[in-house]
C-alpha cells in the first residue's frame, strides 16, 4: 500500500471514530470556532470603520485648517482667508467658479437609540459648492435645504442610530429649531454621520460672524499640494495648513485604529489560550488511542500514514470549528451598525464589514490551529516504539 492510500485508510478510521470521542472533538471544534469568531469580529469592525473613514477622504481634495488645530472643530478660517485660499494654484472650477467649499463644524446633541442618552453629532454648515464637490452625495429622501432658512438634511447614519431625525421632524438644539427636509447618502462614509445645513444660517445662530472653520478645495488633475503649501507660506495673512482630505480622515480615524490594534492583540493572545486548549484536547484524544495507533503500525501501516491520519483529523476538526466560527461571526456581526466617538468628540456611525478575504483569514487561522494541535500529538504517538505503546495501559 502506498503512503497515500494508507493515510486515507487511517484518516477514514479516525474520522469514523470521531463520534466515540464526541466531547473531545467538540472541544477542539469549539476552540477553533471561538478564536476565528473573535478575530473576525475585530477585523470586521476595523474594516467597517476604515471603509467609513477612508471613503470620506478624497485624495484630490485639499483640506485647509488653521495650523496646529488638528481638527475641524478647533480651527477658524476668516472670510478673507477663504478668498485667498480660492486663489491658490491648482484649484479646479466649474460654471459657478472655483470648487472651494468653506465649511462650519459645530457639535450638537442627539439622543442615541441604543442607550437613550445624549451623544455628540456634528452639524456641518455647507454651501452649494461643497455639495457639488462631493461626488457621491445624493438625496435619498426629501429635498435640499433652502439657503437662508433653518432647514437641514440628515445623513443616513444619523437616521439609523439617533432618534427624532426622520423627514419632516422638527429638531431643537438649544433654543434653535430646525426642520428636517431631506435625508442624504454619501456612499456609506463618515459624512453620513452628520447633519448639514446652510453655512450662513449657522454663522448667524452660533455667533460666528463671517468666519468658517475649514476649507475644502477640489484639485485640478495633476495639481500638487506642495505648490499650495508654498502659496500658504508666502502669504503672511494665511495661518492655515493644507493636507489631502484623505490624510486628514486617516488621522481622525486613529482612535479606532487603536481599538482595532487592541482587538488584534487580544485575539492573538486569546488564540494562544485556545490553542493550548486544543493541543490539550488532541494530546488526550491521541493518548486515548495510543493502542489503536500502535496496532496499525504493528500490522504494517507506516509511521508516516499514522502521523498524517492523526494530523488530518485535527485539521478537519479545526476547519469545522473555523467554518462555524466564521458563520457565527457573519451572522452576528456582518452589517451590524455601530457608532463610536471619532475625532473631534463626535459620533461616527459605521457598519461591520465581514468580507470574503477576512473570512479566508479566519479559515487559515483555524487550519494553523489544527495543524499545530495535531502535529505534536501525532508526532508523539508515532514516534513511540510499538512495543512500548502496547505496554502502557490506558
Amino acid at each position, binding site marked *: 500500500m502506498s503512503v497515500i492510500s494508507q493515510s486515507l485508510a487511517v484518516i477514514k478510521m479516525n474520522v469514523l471514530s470521531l463520534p466515540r470521542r464526541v466531547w473531545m472533538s467538540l472541544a477542539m471544534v469549539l476552540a477553533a470556532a471561538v478564536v476565528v469568531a*473573535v478575530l473576525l469580529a475585530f477585523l470586521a469592525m476595523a474594516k467597517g470603520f476604515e471603509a467609513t473613514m477612508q471613503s470620506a477622504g478624497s485624495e484630490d481634495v485639499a483640506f485647509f485648517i488653521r495650523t*496646529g488645530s488638528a481638527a475641524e472643530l*478647533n480651527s477658524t478660517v476668516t472670510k478673507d482667508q477663504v478668498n485667498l485660499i480660492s486663489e491658490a494654484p491648482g484649484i479646479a472650477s466649474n460654471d459657478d467658479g472655483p470648487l472651494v467649499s468653506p465649511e462650519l463644524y459645530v457639535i450638537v446633541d442627539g439622543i442615541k437609540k441604543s442607550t437613550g442618552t445624549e*451623544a455628540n453629532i456634528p452639524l456641518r454648515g455647507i454651501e452649494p459648492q461643497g455639495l457639488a464637490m462631493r461626488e457621491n452625495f445624493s438625496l435619498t429622501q426629501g429635498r435640499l435645504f433652502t439657503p437662508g432658512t433653518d432647514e437641514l438634511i440628515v445623513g443616513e447614519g444619523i437616521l439609523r442610530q439617533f432618534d427624532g431625525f426622520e423627514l419632516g421632524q422638527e429638531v431643537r438644539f438649544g433654543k434653535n429649531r430646525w426642520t428636517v427636509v431631506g435625508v442624504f447618502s454619501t456612499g456609506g462614509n463618515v459624512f453620513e454621520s452628520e447633519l448639514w445645513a446652510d453655512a450662513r444660517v449657522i454663522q448667524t445662530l452660533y455667533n460666528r460672524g463671517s468666519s468658517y472653520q475649514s476649507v475644502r478645495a477640489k484639485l485640478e488633475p495633476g495639481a500638487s499640494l506642495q505648490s499650495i503649501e508654498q502659496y500658504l507660506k508666502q502669504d503672511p495673512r494665511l495661518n492655515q495648513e493644507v493636507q489631502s482630505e484623505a490624510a486628514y480622515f486617516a488621522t481622525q480615524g486613529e482612535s479606532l485604529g487603536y481599538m482595532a490594534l487592541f482587538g488584534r492583540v487580544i485575539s492573538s493572545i486569546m488564540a494562544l*489560550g485556545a490553542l493550548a486548549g486544543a493541543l490539550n484536547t488532541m494530546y488526550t484524544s491521541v493518548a486515548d488511542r495510543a493502542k489503536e495507533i500502535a496496532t496499525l503500525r504493528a500490522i504494517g501501516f507506516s509511521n508516516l500514514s499514522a502521523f498524517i491520519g492523526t494530523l488530518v483529523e485535527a485539521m478537519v476538526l479545526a476547519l469545522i470549528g473555523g467554518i462555524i466560527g466564521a458563520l457565527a461571526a457573519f451572522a452576528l456581526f456582518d452589517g451590524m451598525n455601530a457608532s463610536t466617538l471619532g475625532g473631534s468628540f463626535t459620533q461616527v456611525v459605521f457598519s461591520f464589514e465581514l468580507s470574503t478575504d477576512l473570512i479566508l483569514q479566519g479559515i487559515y487561522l483555524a487550519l494553523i490551529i489544527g495543524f499545530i494541535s495535531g502535529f505534536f500529538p501525532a508526532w508523539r504517538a508515532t514516534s513511540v516504539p510499538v512495543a512500548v505503546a502496547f505496554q502502557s495501559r490506558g
Partner: protein
Amino acid sequence: MKDFYLVYKNLTRKKLRLFLTCFAIFIAFLIFGAVTALQGALNSGVEMSADNRLVVFNKINFTQPLPYAYVNKVRSIDGVEHVTHANWFGGYYQEPANQIVTMAVAPESYFEVYEELVVDPQQKASWLANQAGVLVGERLAKVNNWQIGDRIPISSSIFSHKDGGQTWDLVVEGIFTANDPQIDTGYMVFHYKYFMETQSWGGDYVGWIVLTTEDPALNEQVAKAIDENFANSQAETDTDTEKAFNKAFIEQIGNIGLIIFGVVFMAFFTILVLVGNTMVLAVRERTNEIAVLKTLGFSSPRIFRMILTESCLLSFLGGLLGIGAAFLVVRFLSEMMARFLPNLVLGSDILLQALGYMLLLGLITGIVPAVNALRLNIISAFARG
C-alpha cells in the same frame, strides 16, 4: 492534609497537560484582568464624581460656550454652595499629538468646588499672585518631569495669542494632588482672566460652570432652577450632576465598547469551558485508580474533596499567574497611556472578582468529575482489572 501529596501528584502527573491547562487559564485571566481594568478606567470618572457637584453646559452641546454673566446668576440661586467655571484651552506641548489637558479657571473658587484637590497653601498663594502661573496636577507633572519654577510653553489647538502664534509661556507655580489616588491629576489649570486678556478674540464667555449644592438632595431642584432661569435666553443651559455627565460621555464610546467587551468575555468563558472539558477527561482517565482508592478504603466524600481540591488548585495556579501578569501589563500600560486613560489600575475589586471566577472555575470543572468519582461503582471498576 495528608491527601495533599496525592492531590499534588495527580495534578503534576502529566507535566505537558498541566502546563497547557494552566496556560489556557493564565491567558483567560490575563485578558479578564486587563480588559476589566480598561473598562474600569473608562468608568472611573463616574465612580469618582462628587455627589453634590453639578455641571452647567450650553444646551446645544458642551462644546458651546456660556456668557460670563451666567456665573453670578447661578451663584444667586437657592441651594448653591460654591460656583466656579472653566474654559477648554485645547492645549498641547511642543507637538499637537502631545495633548495636555489645560483649563482656564476661576482661580479662587476652583479649589472650593473641587475640594478633593490638595495644594500647598504657599504654592497656591504664589499661583494666585502670578497671572501667567499654572498649577499642574501631580501626574501630569510627573509624566513631563516638570518642577516648580519651570517655564513651559503650552500651545493651543483652538486659540491664538494676541501677540501672534498659538503658544502661551506659563510658569509652574505649584503642583496639586488629590486626597484619593483614584482621582485624576493629569491636567493643569491657569488664570481665566489672563487667558481672556491674552487670546486674540477676547470676549467674556466661559466653557462651562461647575457648582456644588448645599446638599445632594437639592441637586434636582437646583438643576431645574438653573435651567428654568436661562430658558428662552440667548444661551439655554443643561444642568446635570457631574456623575450623569461623565456617564453620558463614556456612553459616547458607544456600542463599540459593548461589542468589544462582549466578545472578550464570551471568549473568556469559552476558554474556561475548554479547560473544564480537559479536567473532566483527565479525571475520567483515572477511573480505575479512583476505584482502587475506594477499594483500599478511601471514602467517597474524601475522594470527592481530593478532586475538587485538585481542580481548584489548578484554577488558582493558572488564574493567579494570569491576574498577576494582568497587573503588570496594566501597570506598564498605565504609564504608557497615562495621557489617554488616567485611571488604568487593576484594583482590589477586580482582583476579588477574578478570585471569585477562579473559585467558580475550580468548583465547576471539579464538580462533574468529582460527582462521577463519587458515583463510581467499584464493582464495575474492578472488573476492568
